[in-house]
């Protein structure tokens, strides 16, 4: 036996990723989340069945990283576009959207709530970083109380800017929402949990169980004006106290 035959590749780029370096800022969560989605799709062997809907903000360019059939949606409209795809494509196709907090919980609240209420058999990946990233760090519907942003320069005051929206909790009252989970990506253990949630969401869709959403608490160091490791720590300590991790609907209701 020669030494080359003993080499086994244990870790490599998922085949679902085209191999471009991620175009995101240092310490941004998008890279990890993209990779988790790609890994799970490869593991389930469904890359050829995927039709993905990308949206706006920093992840507007996510289509350059994946090998799937993909289309873009306007600000907040991804769940409605995914609805059209779902109703027109054969049922074995797997459809996901990828949306930020402003997209999903402000300008697209109606589309999100109604896609969930209808129980559309789609998966929504919701990246909650508490700010509007691409436009330069303004107030998001998920900015936590007291948090300074470029449009709440004195900190989020509920008398002026209201309270943050907890999306999983909000959607959990809807019969059509089948799987709702909030996960973190701030350490190895939370990333492992996040990967499990992504897999469960896709599996439930494949089984035709209806609307699934995975919310990632994700760091945005540039707009938090923190170093990457500090931003990750901030998500773990500050965001999770306002947005508790866990499954809000376990995918068993039908």
């Amino acid at each position: 036996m020669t030494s080359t035959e003993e080499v086994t590749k244990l870790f490599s780029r998922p085949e679902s990723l085209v191999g471009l370096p991620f175009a995101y800022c240092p310490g941004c969560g998008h890279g990890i989340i993209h990779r988790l989605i790609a890994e799970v799709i490869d593991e389930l062997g469904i890359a050829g069945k995927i039709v993905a809907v990308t949206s706006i903000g920093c992840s507007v360019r996510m289509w350059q990283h994946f090998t799937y059939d993909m289309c873009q949606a306007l600000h907040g409209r991804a769940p409605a576009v995914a609805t059209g795809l779902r109703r027109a494509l054969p049922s074995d196709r797997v459809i996901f959207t990828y949306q930020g907090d402003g997209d999903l919980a402000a300008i697209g609240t109606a589309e999100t709530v109604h896609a969930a209420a209808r129980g559309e058999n789609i998966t929504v990946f919701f990246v909650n970083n508490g700010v509007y990233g691409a436009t330069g760090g303004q107030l998001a519907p998920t900015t936590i109380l007291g948090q300074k942003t470029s449009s709440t320069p004195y900190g989020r005051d509920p008398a002026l800017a209201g309270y943050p929206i907890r999306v999983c909790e909000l959607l959990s009252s809807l019969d059509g929402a089948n799987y709702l989970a909030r996960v973190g990506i701030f350490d190895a253990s939370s990333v492992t949990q996040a990967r499990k949630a992504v897999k469960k969401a896709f599996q439930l869709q494949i089984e035709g169980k209806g609307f699934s959403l995975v919310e990632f608490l994700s760091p945005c160091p540039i707009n938090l004006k923190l170093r990457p490791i500090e931003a990750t720590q901030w998500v773990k300590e500050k965001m999770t106290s306002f947005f508790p991790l866990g499954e809000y609907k376990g995918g068993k209701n039908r």
Partner: protein
Amino acid sequence: MPLQRELVEGNEAIAEAAIKANCRFFFGYPITPQTEILEYMAKRLPQVGGFFMQAESEIAAISMVQGVACTGARVMTATSSPGISLMQEGISCLASMQLPCVIVNVTRASPGLGRIPPAQSDYFQATKRGHGDFNVIVLAPASAQEMADLTMVAFDLADEYRNPVMILTDGMLGEMMETMVWPERRPRNFVKDWALEGAENREGRLLISAPLTDHELIELNVELNKKYKKMAAKECRWEEFYLEDAEQVVVAFGTTSRISLEAVDEARKKGIKAGMIRPITLWPFPHPPFKDSCPKAKAFLSVEMNNGQMVEDVKLAVCGRAPVHFYGQGGGWVPSSLAVEEQIEKLAEAI
């Protein structure tokens, strides 16, 4: 067997013609005076293996249309004036991604909430559109027959150019019943090698509205503009009446074209040399008859149920050769043929 004439409501003529054009998907939101289209589709589409959905808003409806259009299937939505305002962002997006679909506007009186009598006050938002440099073909039927005929044409045009096509009509034509014959036209088939279906054993396909670089967006605009110029050159439709010796030419589309034609006929009986141009496409606006067919015209009269939105297009088509007058009113006003005839008589005296 002789063709069967049927008594059909305008809105239902559109809906059934869409089904005859192989449209199997409809997304909409109830709004008067469009709602019969939505209700007809809710009942009829499941009977032909199609799919109907009442969306949570017009914004969602046009986005659902986008989703279906991405798969290459034929899809339609219908609404009325404020609904088109909400759909404008989506129509711009569909145009940028070169996605075919048919959008119906059964216009009601505006601005704002307005009221529900018929109007033509969406001429601007149909022909001048939403954000960005894009065009949609706008078809303006004038009868239940044409509601059906042009709906079938609209789906073929949408597929041929990979572009949204709009049918601009109003509450009068939409809710009026007339006899008509169902068109015998067969829907054309198109190869859609751009459609999304899952990238099994091939490279992934992308339908993108936001290119990565400024340069690519300029390239997209150049490509789109070439297409729009081709559409403008090839797709003008109109009908003309008595133009050869006409000293004055009435210009009217949709509901006002029917009323005006009656007035022109009556004026002719009185010896007034009046003619008429009825634009059927509002974009592209039909310039040829203005240039080629009315050599003796000394004046033009645009008759519209709005404050004169088409006048600028008529002026561009007339190109300074004769004055362009306007008779009309926004807000739900409908002219009588007698009133139009009076305007024709006044103009005859003046020229």
